[in-house]
């Protein structure tokens, strides 16, 4: 069950990792008019035909999840954005990558809460398949960027719990200082 925008972010980025993306960029942009998330990857991409089926809840890529016949991530996201006066757009090219962009209208009562940004970013940055992941968070006047390669250069192995704790502290300080 998805209850927060960060849950959708986690899901879309995980799709990118599963498509063998090595360079992924996530941008969360908050303005008075819209809350927009853009996830760009250089994974294997989708053909026109796959793009048509991707929003169908009863379709999933063959062999991606053994024993599972449904692929609910993007279809739930599509439903949620429609409900909250936003939209979901997909752009993809086989062998080049995919861009998923979704927006929510902050004024709509059906817009989900933002969720736990710090834990979500930490989870994504520590993912073993994350490659060179860059996460940008922007408000109208402020923002910060997290570059996984740069952070590994400072902290070392992100799978170590002590380093992960420091990473969380770092992200929390960036988030708390946002105006």
């Amino acid at each position, binding site marked *: 069950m998805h209850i927060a925008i960060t849950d959708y972010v986690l899901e879309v980025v995980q799709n990118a990792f599963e498509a063998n993306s090595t360079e992924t960029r996530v941008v969360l942009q908050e303005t008075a008019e819209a809350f927009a998330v853009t996830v760009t990857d250089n994974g294997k991409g989708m053909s026109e035909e796959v793009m048509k089926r991707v929003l169908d809840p009863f379709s999933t890529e063959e062999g991606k999840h053994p024993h599972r016949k449904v692929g609910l991530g993007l279809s739930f996201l599509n439903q949620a954005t429609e409900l909250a006066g936003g939209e979901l757009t997909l752009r993809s090219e086989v062998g080049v990558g995919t861009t998923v962009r979704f927006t929510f209208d902050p004024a709509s009562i059906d817009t989900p809460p933002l969720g736990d940004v710090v834990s979500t970013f930490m989870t994504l940055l520590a993912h073993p398949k994350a490659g060179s992941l860059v996460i940008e968070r922007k408000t109208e006047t402020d923002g910060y960027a997290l570059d996984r390669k740069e952070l590994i250069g*400072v902290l070392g192995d992100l799978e170590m719990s*002590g380093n992960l704790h420091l990473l969380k502290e770092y992200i929390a*300080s*960036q988030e708390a*200082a946002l105006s």
Partner: protein
Amino acid sequence: MAKMTLEELRKLREEKQEALEKRSIEGKDCRIIIGMGTCGIAAGAKETLSTFLSVLDEEKIKHVAITQTGCMGLCYVEPTVEVILPDMPPVIYGKVDADVARKIVKEHILGKRLVTDHMFDRPAADIIKQDGGR
């Protein structure tokens, strides 16, 4: 909270490097595993953990890794601590408060003698490897 820069993060890591190294198991043959399930924490496992950290510091012991795990299934004798040393049987100690933690370091780790009055269990033979999980 003030916004941290990458340089500050690097400094913070350097400051905490020693504490991080105590948790690292790389190149260490001895392990102290502290049961930090809710039962353990309620019974004072956090104090046990910090006592182990400070005693290892005091005694300048570098070859022991301290890690934590969940409940070991001996909730009635929490806080529980497993000590794995080469050439000694793996042992689970129970009711390990700060004083017992000091005793374990002095007698078991340095003296190579089991602290028999706090020994509660050895891991069941069917779930450990022949070499005692080392």
